[in-house]
């Protein structure tokens, strides 16, 4: 975050000088007037210069995008980050490039870690509303959802047949929600989560 303090005869002049120095436009910065100029007695005695502090405006989405591109590059993958328009309070950032498996990881654990870090970066120094970012690559989120729904239905069938409950492997909150939602209209089936994060698991059982 670039910032500069400059004195000049008027506020306008000081801002203009600061923008030149930073090579930025007025809409890219925040201006704070530290001292108003005063003429002083007869324009000589006690006259004060104007002093302003001009700070680069932080664009959290731009920052996060750059963060993800930098990290991917250091991991040995060149990606372009496409920011999708907000939907339901979430902003999806899609990693686009070749061979992104390394960024997704086993069961998406790397993608989830990057998503968690991206959310921290987006909300660092962010005075506005908290940004919620979903990170996606190669359509992983949608593919995973489909897999989880199929798994949920298959396991529910098994529970109905055997009458015995099934404990799924640990999943993150979003994945568990997909399972709960997929089975909420099954009138013979109950689902609940048990255990502590990050090892919380969904349990599928017969409704008692």
């Amino acid at each position, binding site marked *: 975050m670039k910032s500069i303090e400059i004195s000049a005869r008027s506020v306008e002049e000081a801002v203009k000088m600061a923008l030149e120095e930073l090579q930025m436009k007025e809409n890219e910065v925040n201006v704070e007037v530290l001292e108003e100029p005063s003429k002083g007695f007869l324009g000589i005695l006690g006259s004060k210069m104007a002093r302003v502090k001009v700070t680069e405006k932080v664009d959290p989405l731009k920052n996060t995008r750059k963060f993800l591109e930098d990290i991917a590059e250091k991991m040995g993958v060149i990606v372009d980050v496409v920011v999708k328009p907000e939907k339901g309070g979430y902003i999806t950032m899609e990693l686009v490039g070749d061979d992104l498996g390394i960024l997704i990881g086993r069961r998406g654990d790397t993608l989830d870690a990057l998503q968690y870090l991206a959310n921290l970066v987006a909300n*660092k120094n962010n005075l506005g509303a908290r940004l919620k970012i979903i990170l996606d690559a190669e359509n992983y989120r949608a593919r995973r959802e489909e897999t989880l729904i199929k798994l949920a239905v298959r396991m529910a069938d098994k529970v109905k047949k055997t009458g015995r409950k099934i404990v799924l492997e640990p999943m993150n909150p979003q994945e568990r929600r997909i399972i709960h939602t997929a089975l909420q209209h099954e009138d013979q089936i109950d689902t609940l989560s048990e255990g502590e994060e990050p090892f919380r698991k969904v349990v599928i059982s017969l409704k008692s």
Partner: protein
Amino acid sequence: MKELVETLAKALVDDVEEVKVTSREENDVLILELHVASPDMGKIIGKQGRIARAIRTVVRAAAVRKDKKVIVDIVQ
């Protein structure tokens, strides 16, 4: 690897200048020691070590490609 840890840490802390990473190798394992200013410790460890875990997951993924074992140590 070292730069990856540096970039991750710098994006999370306030005091960017104090981020230092040293690397050494022991029995074919690359050990990266991450140092940040003490007020920033929480920003790279997180509640129940959640941030540290995310950093390690990302570094481990990068190491797979290089076929290397990497340990990220956070030091005071």
